């Protein structure tokens, strides 16, 4: 079962919720996948050990000008101007390529072969509590994160309980992380900005057909914007995490709220059991 933790707005507490929930799981039964590959940070809290690292690449076309007859079929199929003919030359722009292999398929002269460019690293480790963490780290300067996110997700064991720490936003990276999840837990910040981007994510999830629930983070006990929106949309709020200076101090040291603040441990344990109950409607966990 895959539960993805998302938010829309950045900085609402996706990683905080992911790592603390995982730490609450009985017998370290949860595997964590940090798919915020542009700025992964779950490892700062979970502290995995004996990490292994492998580079991840994506396909980009290479053109054999000996075989090319300048028919322009590759240029016509490419929606991203990543391959284009100029006079008697074919130019490729690897950083624009989405690796769809369309050019390779339509080339009647077999002049296009697969080359590759490195997207970043895939890193794996397990912490002292036995929680396995897998994450992606996008290469500095690389703009295309979805293929790396998909590679991180390819390591998910469908039989296990997996928490995916998603990227912010609602564009391709967020969709890549949320797609094919069994459930989405949205970390909602009770501010106008938090609500705005939360609503965008809710709309995206309806299209992706992923069921969801909210957890309100930094709840000041006053703002009702998320409550009102949740009531209107019929989405359940599974927990409310208080806005305290103490919680911020614990996070800033890379420590887990559940280890340091008894009240937070109670809240997260309760959230974990409610989440499992809600997410496991399909009865995937034995």
């Amino acid at each position: 079962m895959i539960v993805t933790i998302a938010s829309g707005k950045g900085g609402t507490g996706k990683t905080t919720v992911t790592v603390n929930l995982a730490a609450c799981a009985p017998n370290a039964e949860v595997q964590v996948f940090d798919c915020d590959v542009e700025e992964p940070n779950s490892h700062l809290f979970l502290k995995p050990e004996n990490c292994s690292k492998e580079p991840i690449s994506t396909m980009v076309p290479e053109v054999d000008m000996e075989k090319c007859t300048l028919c322009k079929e590759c240029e016509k199929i490419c929606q991203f101007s990543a391959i284009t003919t100029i006079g008697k030359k074919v130019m490729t722009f690897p950083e624009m390529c989405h690796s769809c292999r369309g050019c390779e398929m339509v080339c009647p002269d077999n002049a296009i072969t697969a080359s590759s460019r490195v997207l970043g690293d895939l890193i794996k480790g397990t912490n002292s509590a036995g929680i396995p963490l897998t994450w992606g780290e996008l290469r500095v300067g690389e703009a295309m994160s979805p293929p790396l996110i998909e590679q991180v997700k390819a390591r998910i064991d469908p039989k296990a309980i997996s928490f995916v720490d998603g990227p912010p936003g609602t564009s391709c990276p967020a969709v890549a992380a949320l797609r094919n999840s069994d459930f989405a837990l949205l970390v909602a910040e009770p501010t106008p900005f938090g609500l705005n981007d939360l609503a965008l994510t809710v709309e995206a999830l309806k299209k992706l057909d992923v069921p969801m629930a909210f957890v309100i983070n930094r709840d000041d006990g006053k703002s009702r914007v998320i409550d009102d929106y949740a009531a209107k949309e019929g989405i359940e709020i599974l927990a409310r995490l208080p806005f305290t200076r103490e919680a911020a101090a614990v996070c800033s040291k890379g420590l887990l709220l559940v280890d340091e603040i008894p009240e937070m441990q109670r809240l997260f344990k309760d959230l974990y059991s409610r989440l499992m109950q809600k997410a496991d409607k399909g009865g995937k966990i034995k």
Partner: protein
Amino acid sequence: MKIAVSSSGNTLESDIDPRFGRAQNFIIINTETMAFEVKENVQNLNLPQGAGIQAGKTVADLEVEAVITGNCGPKAFNVLEAAGVKVITGISGTVKEAVEKLNTGNLAYAGGPNVEGHWV
């Protein structure tokens, strides 16, 4: 000589558009006779990405010898270079003023792009 000038308007008195890939129009002009035509760039202006590449192709297909513009990024520059089109960057003012400067030999060709991609 036939050249292309990126422009925000459609006359010789129009301002040079500082953007190449996402220029409003290209004024295609014969520098000897000052006869010109307007090539719209709307189709490239609205592209999510690759505007510089497509704009480079647009002017290369019109068989111009040179481009006068404000800023030209690395991808557009590579396309223009591959097509054998010379590039003059860093130019502002009207299209007419730029062509007159070119005719009096007061403009230098660029050896490379003068901005990074996506500079706006």
